[in-house]
């Protein structure tokens, strides 16, 4: 019996919180960027991603040509956004802007990372990508991700 132990910390806690998250498989060289204000956090959001119609599952098969089930090295990176109403609200233009900038920056710098990867998420454009604070947060997330990758 091979036990799988997964550390989830408190990423199920989405009460008045919002997150940017990255699903990463180094073996398959894919990264999926997402955001959520779900009350169940990124852990709760994860379930929806791997359902039959889940976007992570769909994007993965579109890119790789085979099912996600065989991936055995997925890691989930979670970044808590500031506790400011504009980031946790249902209206999500600020969250989307950060998500968009993170994805875009990853596309630019991926050649410098080993192994390089495809960004398989599709991110909505947001009119707020010029916002100073939004850019700063996105930049911090990317820098931190590079350190951990």
């Amino acid at each position, binding site marked *: 019996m091979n036990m799988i132990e997964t550390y989830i910390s408190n990423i199920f806690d989405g009460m008045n919180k919002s997150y940017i998250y990255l699903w990463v498989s180094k073996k398959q060289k894919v990264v999926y960027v997402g955001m959520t204000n779900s009350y169940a956090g990124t852990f709760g959001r994860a379930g929806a991603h791997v359902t039959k119609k889940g976007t992570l599952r769909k994007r993965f098969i579109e890119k790789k040509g085979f099912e996600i089930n065989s991936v055995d090295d997925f890691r989930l990176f979670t970044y808590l956004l500031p506790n400011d*109403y*504009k980031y946790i*609200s*249902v*209206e*999500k*233009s*600020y969250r989307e802007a950060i998500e*968009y900038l993170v994805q*875009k920056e990853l*596309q*630019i710098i991926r*050649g*410098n990372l*080993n192994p*390089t990867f*495809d*960004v398989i998420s599709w991110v909505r*454009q*947001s*009119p*707020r*990508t*010029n*916002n*100073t*604070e939004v*850019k700063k947060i996105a930049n911090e997330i990317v820098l931190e991700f590079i350190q951990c990758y």
Partner: protein
Amino acid sequence: MNNKNETEIGIDVGRVLFGLSRIGYTTSSAICDIIDNSVRANAKNIYLDIIKARKNFTDSKRNNVKEYTIIDDGDGMDEEGILDALKLGSSNNNYEKNTLAKFGLGLKSATFSQADTLQILSATKNNEFIKYVISLQDVIKRKEYFALKMQLDDYDKETIKKYLKEGKGTIIRVSDVKNVNHPSVKKTIEDLKLKIGVIYYYFLNDKSLSINVAGKKIDALDPLFVNEANTNGNLNENTWEGTEVKWIEKTRELVLDDEENIKATIEITQLPYPPIFKIIKKKGEDRKIRKKYLIGANNYGFYVYRNKRLISWVSKLQGIIPTDQDYFSFRGRILIEDAADDYFNIDVKKSSMVLSDEAWNVISDFTQEGKRKSKQAWQNANKHRKGIINQQPNEISNTIINDFEQLETLPGDKIIDEDIAIERQENINKDMKENAIQMAKMTLEDEGGNISDINELTEEQKEKAIKGEVNERLSKIFRVSSVIDNLLWEPYYDTNYGNCVRINKFHRFARLILEENQENQDMQIIFDMLFLQLADAELYAYKNIDKYKYDELKFVLAEYRRIVSEFLANMCRKLEQELPPNYISNEYD
């Protein structure tokens, strides 16, 4: 034959040469290929003389060229070098980084695409000029590829004396031009001014190369107009009016292959939107702008430079740039070095290339945002144009409401005591002053800036912070980029404007009305009116309802705004495909 099973098949060299001359050269592209050899030979000065067949005819006359002479003061060639250059598939021993001469065919195919005779005269430093001539007709007749060594005539000596005072360099004469469907001298000069200016932009710009065509020096022409973009700054696709060149992506280095250290430099600008000039200037001005900025179906996309020499006039990069008029202002440049050749397979005609999968992926991903911005900007500029023709709905609603005064007191509401009224007004003034500071901060942040001292704001900046734009026609209803807590709307009051509303134009519900239903101007006007009344009602409550404390009212009404804003955002999200304009009306009959 080394092997008894092998049979020599032979080759009809005349037909091969004829075939090579039919691979799709235009006159200007053939001349450019020959000029490319001059650049390869380290020329500092290149001259093109165009000799007309009938000198008395104007330059506009078609089929009237006798000879093109391309002269360069480069290294020149000795006899062995000349013969090697004339060979079909000449060696690439001298293959320099700043050329495309990979296949050893350019000189011959370019010449014979335009003419029947190729003359080459060349000399290295301190040596005599040597001349060889190839006649296509003689080669076809004899089915043998050969060149004839000839003595220099007076015309040759005159040319050398005029242009090559240092006694070295190369002269190529493309003579006995085929005057069938041959462009006029004027057309060729126009084409060359454009092509050479763009192809050798970097060389001409840093003055390391000078090219003269028919006696006129060609100026460097940057297809991205980067100098103008540097002056005008970054593109804001939501506010760009189409009159200026802007940066979409400033120069960035992309890694194509980390292990091999293969990199490409990429930059993208947005060129002006020509139709706007017809409106703001005068009729015909749009044509001038199209000509100046080369805006048209054949010029948008990426210009690819290899070692600073253009290798692809404009490329859609295998579908990365869609064929769509909305991208006409998109102008990109990719700079690569020869090390990246395998990632940008170059076609023999030198006019196309095929990206490797990896290069395609990297560039495609990087370009996504730029494409969106460019398209959005083009469409917004079009909206701006329409807005000038037919007043913007927001201006119309402001005009309609300008002289309207809402009821001072509603039936059933008593007139409050004067002391309380003064206190309430002071509270409102104080809160709005604080809000105005917050608005200014948010506006600056939205534009990518910061503010250290709110007192540094100019009057214009303050007006822009409150109203979203400096526009005297806007007096009550302001569509702005940020509202506190990212809510859909908020009331605003000051003594200049009175009761106003600030509508968050980036809120999901506002985008539904203002962007997705932009064609429905009537709905936009009603939307503006509705939110002004919501804001006005809130300010009415602060001023007139004294059975609740001011702070209680403030709290409850702010909560109400928050809940409505969130409900509307959620509704838009969940019903995205079913709200106008996406719904299919028949389904609801």
